[in-house]
């Protein structure tokens, strides 16, 4: 299909290539060009076009706007917030903890691939569970510094540690139509940790201040 269109464009000496120049200083430069008699504005400041097998020819711009130099003073912070709620059950006799239900809500501006955003939020939840309840790196002898640790001592969350069918993730829509993407990275892991610790406090009356909170530690405060 592409080959057919390119062949025709070359045969009729139509446009076969374009080069653009752009500039960003916390905002894009903008310019207007006359293309086939019509004014066309875009976030670029120079444009060249080739026809057929000819050379690239620069199009004159009819107007251009550059971001003010004042903008060099900008720092840019994008904030993607995330919050998590967790409901958990602790078996009194053994201290065994089960996460019954969880809800995470986040805002990331415009999600570019929503399925990946959701997947990252699910993975972040798992990492938060590991951080709070499973993963430990004690110092000195017996710890990973002895060179003999593997996933038998450094426990990461498996499927059985997670509420696989009871994790709801809500991605809030962008605040404005042109908000743009902000990214989320590891924010989806962060609120999981205090959510679990607060839920443990709610259940046991004890505030844990060191991680991981193990079954033995929970048993200890449930007497």
């Amino acid at each position, binding site marked *: 299909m592409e080959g057919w269109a390119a062949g025709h464009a070359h045969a009729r000496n139509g446009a076969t290539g374009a080069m653009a120049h752009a500039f960003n200083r916390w905002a894009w430069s903008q310019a207007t060009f006359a293309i086939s008699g019509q004014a066309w504005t875009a976030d670029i400041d120079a444009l060249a076009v080739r026809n057929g097998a000819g050379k690239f020819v620069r199009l004159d711009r009819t107007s251009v706007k550059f971001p003010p130099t004042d903008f060099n003073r900008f720092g840019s912070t994008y904030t993607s917030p995330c919050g998590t709620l967790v409901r958990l059950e602790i078996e009194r006799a053994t201290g065994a903890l089960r996460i019954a239900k969880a809800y995470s809500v986040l805002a990331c501006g415009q999600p570019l691939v929503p399925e*990946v955003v959701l997947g*990252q939020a*699910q993975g972040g939840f*798992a990492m938060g569970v590991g951080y709070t309840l499973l993963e430990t790196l004690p110092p000195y002898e017996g710890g990973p510094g002895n060179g003999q640790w593997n*996933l038998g001592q450094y426990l*990461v969350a*498996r*499927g059985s540690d997670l509420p696989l069918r009871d994790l709801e993730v809500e991605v809030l829509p962008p605040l404005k139509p042109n908000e743009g993407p902000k990214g989320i990275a590891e924010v989806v892991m962060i609120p999981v940790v205090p959510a679990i610790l607060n839920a443990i406090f709610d259940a046991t009356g004890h505030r844990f201040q060191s991680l991981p909170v193990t079954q033995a530690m929970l048993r200890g405060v449930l007497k």
Partner: protein
Amino acid sequence: MTTLALTINGGAQGPREVRDDLTMNDFLREYLGMTGTKFGCGAAQCLSCAVIVDNPDGTSYTSPTCIVPAKSFDGKAIRTVEGHAKNGELSALQKAFIAHFAFQCGYCTAGFLNEAQVLLERLEKTPVARAELEKTIAEALDGHICRCTGYIKYHEAVRDVILADPKRYLV
């Protein structure tokens, strides 16, 4: 040294001489260049190295390769991730993994794929009730560690392959 001859993805491999202390993982990745099978923990704890072993009686199981000697696979028939697609056509599970965005970095994916494939074939022989499906999938996949995805989309992909053909897999 010992002689190793086996079938991989339907094709004969060997006979060739291999060291007694060669792991199956090294044989696949270093000798055969089949790097679809990964090396994760090297202690059979993450199962990113797992391949499918096909018994003569038609049953199959997954086996780690990182801590198992290559020579113990002599005479066996195995399937690796490279063997799932047929004539360029991805398997139903592979398509479901893609459609569900089930993986991120892909390092655990071959292991999950092999385990899920063995699960499908087991369900064809001994189907389970719909009410038991999620638990069955969870038990089958729990040996596999994933650090990126949180597992949910893997489970949903496998579930949806089964639900798309319930007469084949469910009671």
